[in-house]
């Protein structure tokens, strides 16, 4: 209902900022805003309606003499049904609209660039697959879908970029993800939106949306770093993973080549797709995802390895093609 006002707001925004609307800078933000304006329209319509009726009745039916009574009216069923059914229909429309949008906005495109996020009291650690690390800053290219895979090292945080209209809790012990595709270059707020302790309000930062060439230059600039997969490979040998997961049929552990993204059977008969969460679980609590045909001899690495290193190992496992042998053997 208010969607038609949006071009007006956008015009205002170009004229020096609309104080009543956050910047709209992702592929989903304008569709969320349209629903927001529809809801605002419904709210204003019914509020004005109820207030007007109340004021009209207040004046028309004010008490004229102290002993006056109201005139009894009967309750017509048709009226009760009308004001039950109309709100119901409005709710159905809103539910279908918002759910369709939510489901559509929820799925990251397969082509998304992946960036990894770790929340900890009270800062955001981010790492790009190419290797560069950032704290409380996120550099992304414009026009490219970006998927963030996120976890927390301590309490629950929440990764929130108002300009993109995306938000997701970041929990310890599991991975959550969001995706967005920026449509405009610029600098946007990044907030922690789940209370996480003393300096919660300082767990904020900036998202820099850059042109693809600027982004490439940014990635190439700075210190030369290894990619996340290379860092993971170094950890793989440092922790001696290769002595069992050697990639040979004779290895004491299963080969990890090509395992990522495939369904595998665990010892208790379940079939699970190997993803970040399963690899993390296998490292920290190996016997809970033990594969049949192998002995339960893998020790836990809980306490020896941090969330950032786990993500690097995941990146390494992911990078292993099916034909590739572990550790170049």
């Amino acid at each position: 209902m208010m969607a038609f006002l949006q071009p007006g707001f956008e015009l205002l925004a170009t004229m020096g900022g609309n104080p009543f609307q956050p910047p709209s800078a992702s592929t989903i933000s304008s569709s969320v805003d349209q629903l927001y304006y529809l809801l605002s329209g419904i709210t204003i319509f019914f509020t004005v309606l109820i207030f007007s009726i109340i004021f009209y009745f207040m004046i028309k039916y004010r008490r004229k003499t102290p002993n006056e009574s109201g005139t009894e009216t009967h309750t017509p069923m048709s009226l009760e049904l009308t004001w039950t059914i109309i709100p119901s229909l409005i709710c159905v429309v809103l539910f279908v609209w918002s759910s369709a949008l939510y489901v559509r906005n929820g799925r990251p495109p397969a082509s998304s660039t992946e960036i990894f996020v770790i929340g900890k009291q009270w800062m955001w650690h981010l790492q790009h697959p190419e290797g560069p690390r950032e704290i409380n800053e996120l550099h992304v290219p414009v026009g490219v879908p970006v998927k963030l895979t996120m976890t927390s090292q301590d309490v629950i945080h929440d990764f929130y970029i108002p300009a993109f209209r995306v938000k997701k809790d970041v929990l310890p012990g599991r991975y959550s993800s969001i995706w967005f595709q920026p449509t405009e270059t610029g600098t946007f707020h990044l907030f922690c939106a789940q209370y996480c302790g003393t300096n919660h309000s300082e767990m904020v930062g900036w998202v820099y949306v850059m042109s693809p060439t600027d982004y490439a230059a940014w990635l190439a600039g700075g210190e030369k770093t290894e990619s996340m997969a290379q860092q993971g490979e170094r950890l793989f040998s440092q922790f001696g993973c290769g002595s069992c997961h050697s990639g040979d049929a004779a290895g004491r552990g299963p080969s990890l080549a090509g395992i990522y993204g495939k369904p595998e059977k665990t010892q208790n008969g379940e079939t699970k797709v190997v993803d970040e969460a399963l690899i993390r679980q296998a490292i920290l609590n190996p016997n809970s995802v033990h594969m049949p045909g192998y002995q339960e001899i893998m020790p836990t690495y809980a306490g020896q390895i941090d969330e950032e290193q786990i993500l690097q190992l995941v990146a390494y496992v992911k990078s292993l093609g099916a034909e590739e042998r572990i550790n170049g053997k």
Partner: protein
Amino acid sequence: MSTAIAELQESPAESRVNYLNATYGIKSWLLTLDHKRIGLLYLGSITLMFFVGGMAAVLMRLHLTEPQGALFEPETYNKLFSTHGIIMVFFFLVPSIPATLGNFLIPLMIGARDVAFPRLNLMSWYIFITGAALALYATLSGGVDTGWTFYPPYSAAFSHTNVVAVALGVFVAGFSSILTGLNFIVTIHKMRAPGMTWFRLPLFIWALYATSLIFVLGTPVIAITLFLLGMERILHVGIFDPAVGGDPLLFQHLFWFYSHPAVYIMILPGMGVVSELITAFSRKKIFGYAFVAFSSLSIAIISFIVWGHHMFVTGQSIYAGLVFSVLSFLVAIPSAVKVFNWTATLYKGSISYEAPMLYALGFIGLFTIGGLTGLFLAALATDVHLNGTYFIVAHFHYVMVGGAVMAYMGGLHFWWPKITGRLYPDMWARIAAAIIFIGFNLTFFPQFVLGYLGMPRRYAIYPSEFQVLNVMSSAGASILGIGYVIPLIYLIWSMRYGKPAPPNPWGAKGLEWTIPSPPPTENFETIPVVTEDAYNYASGAH
């Protein structure tokens, strides 16, 4: 106007024995089994809690006038918002209308001499003040910084504040709610006067019946949840903390399974009060009695299956999100039915505008906004953006303060002459109602905008572009604060200096208005026989 009505009616006998002057001395109050005196004990205790919680809110709003924070370190600010939430939710809003007005009025309205279990009723108050004292002590001796939501693992393993003591206070006070609910349910079932059938009950009783069901069914869940949190914190048993094998989302499921219905514990009694006020001040039967009564029950039932809408951004599955979204939209319908029926009750009424009616009309307007803005949060796509921001803060304050507190104030003013036997100055009461309405809107409306702009809640410092709206909100809060202090003054003043109240100063229907003000200890000399429906204003004689 009320004095004009007062003169038309018989003047009360000053020397008459009533529940207030029947016995004297502190012991006669602390050991009383009279539901009316117990109601007043609650009134005193929750008023104290309201001003403690309100003081925390005033300090927060003062702090937030500057982006870098005007007064406190973040740690102190975090303790202030936690104190504000915990005190206001568990020790003011939950007991407010049920324990004060409910205790005082249920027996009077159904034609009984007391509640079903008077001793249990007194025990409930002692349990409540034990919990409240514990929470107050823990707050003043160092405080708690988890927010009223106590989310682990922060509350279980990271916070260095008095989490266990405060949780214990809430846990203890919960038993007061359970026992009060039980008492009310039995009273309403078994103690109604002859002829007082279910469909002749005032809607206030229907609303409190629905509330009592939630007390009994929901409160044990929060008690267990907080108990487990205490175990987790002391013994590290690994229920909620993932570092020792627990699941932090389990806590959120359990917490909201109670705390969402708790929202209706706060608003349903308010809806009951407003139904009474609207009929009394338009001297007309409620429009759609059965629809209003059954919408209370359906709200109570649906309230138990919508908790997941607090968790849309926690990573719960898309399908769970869809189910909780549709159920949350469903709550909007009985709420809308109530608003339309109240509004239609005014039609062809004989409407007067004493202070209680101003509060009732304020309630309808603010609850309408509070309810409609709930749609933004039931809708998944907009909730993702608005969850955890000031939009949420604004929404639930419109429901809880604009709704529940407005209704509580309206009810308190409506039944004050019955409770105390004294009239308060109506002009002051109307001025205060107007100040509260204006102050409330100025405080919380800017917060809707702040939330849409993306300002997260529970921030001790914030980006400077949000300052203008924050200053508006803080200005509103100071007006609101004044609005709440004025009634405190004139109501206390009226207890000694107010004009004596006649039995029925408003010309209202209902058994409580057929007996003297204040009522005698036994309420009714002879138990009345009810022969007519509620709100039978057509029979004349006010």
